[in-house]
């Protein structure tokens, strides 16, 4: 099997983001960036499947500006075999991302496409499902367990009510939950080796897909701030406050 894994470069999950004063977005200059966390789980799962002898090749793909390549390089350092970087100049919407990915899937013919269930910047949670629709492939979203069978996957999905298990025929799209696995760290020798692995660069404009925005971002603002609270000295005081001041119990 061949697995394509899509990774996105986002503001690091530990960074407290700042909204730009002109309301045009959030500050990204001189801010630590890293791979979208559940995309790390997607790479890890692909590597585990390959290590188990059930996949032959892992291709990591990212779409973004020049520096987005860092995320592919990281994927190569933990076990992807080669990379693809589709260059775009601006932020594009999940629909456009899925159209680009469809073109790449048609060229690469993977059996599986993995990616994180949601990017922690725009919090859209759309790309995997959209790609599945455009390819007319089955989708297994929010995966917390994947079992590879003959020409199918058994996937346990995290849903609001608990867990659901489905079987999807290959080819399929899987979007990964953070609980799917524990992503490994790249060792120094593997980071060095990854520098020699190939990354193919493709200009999005050469793919012949419409990636123009359909949604106008009118304004980005800070959410309303909570009023500062107080510290209470004892449990007794806490219960009295909840009963008599906040009146919630």
């Amino acid at each position, binding site marked *: 099997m061949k697995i394509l894994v899509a990774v996105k470069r986002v503001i690091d999950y530990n960074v407290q983001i700042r909204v730009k004063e002109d309301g045009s977005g959030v500050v990204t200059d001189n801010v630590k960036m890293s791979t979208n966390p559940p995309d790390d789980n997607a790479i890890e799962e692909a590597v585990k499947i390959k290590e188990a002898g059930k996949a032959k090749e892992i291709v990591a793909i990212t779409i973004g500006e020049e520096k987005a390549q860092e995320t592919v390089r990281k994927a190569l350092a933990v076990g992807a075999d080669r990379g693809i970087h589709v260059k775009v100049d601006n932020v594009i919407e999940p629909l456009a991302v899925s159209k680009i990915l469809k073109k790449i899937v048609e060229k690469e013919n993977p059996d599986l496409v993995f990616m994180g269930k949601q990017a922690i910047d725009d919090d859209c949670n759309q790309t995997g499902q959209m790609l599945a629709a455009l390819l007319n492939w089955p989708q297994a979203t929010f995966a917390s367990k994947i079992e590879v069978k003959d020409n199918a996957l058994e996937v346990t999905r995290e849903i609001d009510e608990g867990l659901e298990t489905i079987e999807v025929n290959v080819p399929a799209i899987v979007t990964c939950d953070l609980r799917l696995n524990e992503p490994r760290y790249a060792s120094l020798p593997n980071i060095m080796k990854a520098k020699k692995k190939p990354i193919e660069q493709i200009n999005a404009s050469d793919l012949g897909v419409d990636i123009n925005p*359909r949604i106008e971002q*009118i304004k980005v603002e800070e959410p309303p701030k909570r009023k500062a609270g107080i510290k209470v000295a004892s449990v007794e005081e806490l219960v009295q406050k909840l009963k008599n001041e*906040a009146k919630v119990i």
Partner: protein
Amino acid sequence: MSVLLIAEHNNKEVRPFTYNAITAASQINDDLHVLVLGHQADDVAKSLSEVPNVKKVIHVDNEIYENYIAENYTAAIIKHAENYSHIVSSANTFGKNLMPRIAALLDTSQVSDIIKVISEDTFLRPIYAGNAFATVKSNDKKKCVTIRPTSFDPADKSGGSAEITKSDPAEASSSTKFLKKEEVKSDRPELGTARIVISGGRGMQNGENFKLISDIADKLNAAIGASRAAVDAGYITNDHQVGQTGKVVVPDLYIAVGISGAIQHLAGMKESKVIVAINKDGEAPIFSVADYGLEADLFEALPQFLSELNKLNTIQK
């Protein structure tokens, strides 16, 4: 044009967030139709026809809709899409799984997880785990929108009498099979809609210690939540997770116990009306959003909390 809302249900009952989504959907346009895809779900269709905000219920009954499979749902929804300007659902795992599949086939850029309807094409939505709010305008002809249920009140459930029309199923997908669902049954209120939520984090140290939390939850008729750290560590099942990638809750009272307050957890609870934090680390970020902070060892504070509650003559339910 009209709005089509996709109902979430279990073939017997309407799932509660559908009512919150109805409120938002009818703010987009009051000609709101609801699509019920299910198997022997007549009671669901009937309940929804009684919601005053609903003008019409379209009911498709077939065994292929007994379990919720996005591929099968999508094919049926696409059949109806041309009559509508907006297709909407709640932004929980139901709608998150489903709506992008519909949007892509309609060549529409979806607007996810809206918290406010500004006009028919303009919405407010949180980004970066709720640390920024974006006002976005959709320029697509047909709009696909998911609704953060906790940002809208549930619609009234009775008094209406919408027409129920039957419609034919679409083709079933042969490449996805439902195998099983492991639902955690509980007599407690649902986490997403509970008036009070008490959550435990890594500070609970193990699953058995959650008994300290469940004792208080029983007393307050509260739902039990957890931080991702507590779920990852196996203290409690995933359906309890509150946060950016878990559930978003907006109860009247949220009690965070042994939770440090990572950005990702705050994203799921900081809109709660009253927040209590109990943590022995006085510097923990959770105190920055807490109305009432108690710096204490939770293993001493929780039993005391329960005994103080027991002293009260009345407790709101």
